[in-house]
């Protein structure tokens, strides 16, 4: 015990590496597909945040007497069935669709993730009760369940967010529970219990950091799924209601143009597809990254 190095008592133990340094080290090694994904996502976020300042016209402003006007310098993507500027609505669409999808996913994770971890730590009847309830909810296809609930409560943004979030939280619950279960049985969690640690420490210091990578990746995938579900509902006319600009309903409202060989309605649909592809790329890289953490030196 006394064989310490000469300067031991006064020595200052060197400080940790900062989080920012770590993130930068990781980012430098990201592949092109991930960079592409991140840039696309950044672009979408920028548009979503600053739509009112970038858009040439108002969200629901009728700017042309001609419905379905063709592409021109004044209306880059033409106008829609009511004579509103398509480009403007595309920008506002990013704001509405992304915002709602994000809020829904966050809510789904708060509900599903929280309950999932609680079920895995307490086990017993709490776990049984929650798991059986989730099994039953998942026995009905999600879109169908959403349709039933929308037919009862009607389509409003709040209803939409709550309904999709609750339904989606079942999947988050299952994943969080099973991942947390794998962590909870680890010796280091037992070691913490033997040390006498309280629930809070075990939850936040032992379990959570280990399920975070999986949950973050899942967040990306769930976001895509929620985003696609909301777009599908809007496309069916049951999601975000007019006059709010939204990509799903934009496709629906202008769909007839397709039969006249006009690709305008494909642009909002493509905007949806591009974002989901981008998120998938980033998630793919992230999964690869976190699963290979062990080899990193």
């Amino acid at each position, binding site marked *: 015990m006394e064989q310490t190095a000469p300067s031991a008592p006064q020595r200052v133990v060197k400080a940790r590496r900062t989080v920012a340094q770590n993130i930068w080290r990781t980012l430098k090694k990201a592949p092109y597909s991930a960079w592409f994904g991140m840039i696309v996502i950044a672009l979408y976020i920028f548009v979503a945040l600053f739509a009112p300042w970038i858009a040439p016209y108002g969200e629901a402003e009728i700017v042309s007497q001609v419905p379905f006007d063709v592409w021109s310098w004044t209306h880059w993507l033409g106008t829609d069935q009511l004579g509103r500027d398509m480009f403007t609505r595309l920008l506002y669409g990013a704001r509405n669709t992304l915002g709602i999808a994000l809020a829904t996913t966050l809510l789904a994770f708060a509900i599903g993730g929280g309950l999932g971890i609680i079920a895995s730590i307490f086990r017993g009847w709490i776990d049984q009760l929650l798991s059986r309830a989730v099994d039953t909810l998942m*026995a009905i296809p999600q879109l169908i369940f959403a349709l039933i609930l929308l037919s009862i409560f009607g389509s409003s943004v709040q209803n939409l967010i709550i309904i999709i979030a609750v339904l989606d939280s079942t999947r988050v619950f299952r994943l969080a529970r099973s991942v947390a279960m794998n962590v909870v049985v680890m010796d280091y969690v037992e070691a913490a219990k033997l040390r006498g640690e309280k629930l809070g420490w075990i939850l936040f210091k032992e379990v959570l950091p280990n399920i975070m990578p999986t949950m973050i990746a899942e967040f990306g995938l769930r976001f895509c799924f929620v985003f696609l579900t909301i777009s599908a509902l809007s496309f069916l006319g049951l999601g975000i209601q007019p006059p709010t600009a939204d990509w799903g309903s934009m496709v629906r409202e202008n769909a007839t143009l397709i039969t006249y060989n006009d690709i305008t309605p494909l642009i909002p649909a493509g905007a949806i597809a591009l974002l989901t592809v981008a998120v998938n790329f980033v998630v793919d890289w992230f999964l690869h990254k976190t699963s290979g953490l062990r080899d990193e030196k």
Partner: protein
Amino acid sequence: MHPLLRTVLQRLGLGLITLFVVSLIIFSAIEFLPGDFARAILGQSATPETVEAFQKEIGLDKPPHERYLNWIGGVLQGDFGSSFSSRVGFRRSVMEIIAPRLLNTLFLAGITALVAIPLALGLGLLAALYRNSIFDRAVNAVTLTTISFPEFFVAYILMLFLAVKFPIFHSLSNVSADMPFFEKLQRTALPVLTLTLVIVAHMMRMTRAAIISLLASPYIEMARLKGVSPGQIILRHALPNAWAPIANVIAFNLAYLVVGAVVVEVVFVYPGIGQAMVDAVRSRDIPVVQACALIFAVTYILLNLLADVISIATNPRLLHPR
């Protein structure tokens, strides 16, 4: 009792309970309707008397359990009650609205399944066998992209190219019951193609993953080291252990197929049950919504049940207990 039989019976019992609970959930939809619902259905001009008559007609004056028994009893005999679009003296039964459409959807789903399942299993198997080859990478990239696309995006792209720019198929799939089979088939081509693309992407990826995880097991390596031929490895050593994952993949995707049909039917104006449900949701015709939801849910539950039973029945540990 043989443990295999016991496990299967347990699973079937669980399936029945799930069906019961799901039917309760779907039934209770009507309980949660807001108070002014009748007025919303009947229009602002409805008198208090008509509202009351309407409520009586849909049975709101009776206790819930009695109504549930009536409803589920009717359903078991093929009677889903009357649509809210019925008027006094002019009853429209739900069955009469959805029956022809159900047949259409089954036709669409059936054709798609016939095309998609063999295609997806074949592609998945090939991708697994030649993993990390150019073929595998290409299929992987294409399917990852397809999965990221909303169904209506795929649908409209196909419509643009295969019906508008090159008018090979009809852009609208308005089939009717008395249409000859081949014309029906031709008109259904685009929805079938859309659904196939989406399903194959999912199913192929899942098949590939299932086979790869199987091929990594030590007994497959052992078979290679015993000099078993590649074909025999797949047929004798991998396949007997692969039924469970494959059954699950197929069931999952068939269930998805029935649901995915909703969007595709709307795009191509295909007179199926999905479109009927969307219309009913919009007009808040609850009995029709309930009937459609019940049909979808039952299909979904039964398919999953079947997959589970197949997994159980092909598990050697249960087939040959100690």
